């Protein structure tokens, strides 16, 4: 379940930024259009021309989905203890420190409470930029706790996933987070509290094989990569090129694994309506 994908165009947009002055402009990876950052923000980080959805983090999704200043973050300080003292070509501990410094986040998910058109929700959002949005003990525990918050406060749960899967550097601990989060969701389901799962680009591996696929309603952003095995691994296994659109949101909709593909512009209203209809 690698969190790491070697797809050049997604991982290093920096190379394309170089020719743009001031860092005020972004180039659309869908059509090449140059867009001012302010304009991009107004348009919820989607391209005005081709509707390409830029990959954004929890800070942006909080703006997209929650009412202004309604987000109250919980368990913000939690961070990895490097339980296996894992070393590959680098120390995991150093990777964490570097990621914290680079992103200003303590791990790959933020959780808390907030409001959607005035309705209280428990909310979690992953950040792909923190070690590939990988799930180790911290992500698993924070997701479990926000599920519990929804359970205890009897408020709907919304989780936005973007993740390369379970984090290798915590070994079996990471794997067990799949069971930890899924079992908490079972209890939430028994209490008849709604859970809406939103899948952003990319959602693969252990994250998909646990809470991301277990929504009462699963919503995908357009053209997001969603799957269990990564495309590179599948290609290696079958020794053939993968069909166009394979493992993209629209493919999952067609195969029956997501309920809707919803543009970021419509996301808040759709979630708000769903909560209304389900509660």
């Amino acid at each position, binding site marked *: 379940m690698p969190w*790491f994908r070697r797809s050049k165009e997604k991982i290093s947009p920096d190379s394309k930024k170089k020719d743009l002055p001031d860092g005020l402009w972004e180039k659309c990876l869908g059509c090449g259009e140059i867009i001012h950052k302010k304009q991009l923000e107004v348009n919820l980080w989607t391209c005005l021309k081709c509707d390409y959805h830029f990959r954004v983090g929890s800070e942006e999704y909080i703006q997209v989905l929650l009412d202004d200043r309604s987000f109250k973050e919980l368990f913000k300080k939690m961070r990895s203890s490097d339980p296996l003292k894992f070393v590959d070509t680098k120390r995991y501990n150093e990777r964490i420190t570097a990621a914290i410094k680079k992103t200003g986040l303590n791990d790959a998910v933020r959780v808390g409470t907030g409001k959607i058109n005035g309705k209280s929700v428990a909310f979690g959002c992953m950040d792909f930029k923190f070690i590939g949005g990988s799930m180790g003990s911290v992500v698993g525990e924070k997701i479990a706790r926000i599920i519990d918050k929804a359970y205890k406060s009897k408020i709907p749960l919304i989780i936005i996933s973007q993740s390369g899967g379970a984090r290798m550097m915590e070994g079996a601990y990471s794997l067990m987070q799949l069971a930890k989060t899924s*079992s908490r969701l079972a209890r939430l389901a028994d209490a008849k509290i709604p859970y809406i799962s939103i899948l952003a680009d990319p959602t693969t591996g252990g994250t998909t094989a646990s809470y991301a696929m277990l929504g009462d309603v699963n919503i995908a952003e357009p053209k997001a990569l969603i799957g*269990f095995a990564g495309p590179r691994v599948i290609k290696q296994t079958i020794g053939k090129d*993968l069909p166009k659109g394979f493992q993209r949101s629209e493919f999952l909709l067609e195969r029956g694994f997501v309920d809707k593909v919803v543009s970021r512009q419509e996301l808040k209203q759709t979630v708000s309506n769903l909560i209304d209809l389900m509660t």
Partner: protein
Amino acid sequence: MGKTILDFEKPIFELEEKLEEMKESSASLDIGKDILRLETKVAQLKEELYKGLTRWQRVQLARHPDRPFTLDYINLMTENFIELHGDRHYGDDKAIVGGFAKLGDYKVMLIGQQKGRDTKSNVYRNFGMANPEGYRKALRLMKLAEKFNKPVITLLDTPGAYPGLEAEERGQAEAIARNLFEMSRLRVPIIVVIIGEGASGGALGIGVGNRILMLQNCWYSVISPESCSSILWRNWDYKEQAAEALKLTAPDLLEQKIIDRIIEEPLGGAHKDHQAAADTLKSALLEELDKLVKIKPEKLIEERLEKFGSMGEYIE
């Protein structure tokens, strides 16, 4: 048994062969004492060798082609096993087997990943790599067990869920996620045993239970050492280091509080004596069942939730 000899076992095998030769040729000579001394020495060396195995060597033992697989354990431990087939949606996945059987005095549901022993049977079993219909068959059988109030025992032995095109089309991730979700709230006892390879979500997909047992020479982790090596070292050659870093053996997992109990194997591995390995496992299972069948369904579910809820380490 023991047709395949692993590299690190060679010196011992050579000594044992030598010993046999000497025994045969010495019948007429008066060197019985010397042979006895040599025999003790070989036994000692053997014990030391298997005690001091590296993590990577354990991974190799876990994959030993002569090891007992799920159906071997079922045949050796149970009576009246009736295999049940199909997920009732798509097909019958040969990489996961299951059915009702009698284990001692208990009527139980046994489910496990099934590897093949040679090329032909491995192709038939897809090398123990299940497709979504395998996980859905497993869930169907677990629900059946729940309906008739029978404990569930799952045997984990897989190099991973199958990473194929059709597996994705039929929702591999959903099938595994659904099993984790449903197993956590199943109203009967579940005992999970890692009997060989426990590779990632493919293994865990039938691995949520009240007790997690693990045979001595198995591995269980989020990724195989080879794949970990290829991703983190960007090279397939660092599997030994990856195995060390992942801390994926039974003693490691006991320390991490991810498993409850290690089941000892015959010296040299379960493949040296299938019956002995099965007998040890059987008595451990019966012990655990004696305790678990007394627990009420609500309590079983609560304990499972707490068990997996407490897994993980972090700083606050």
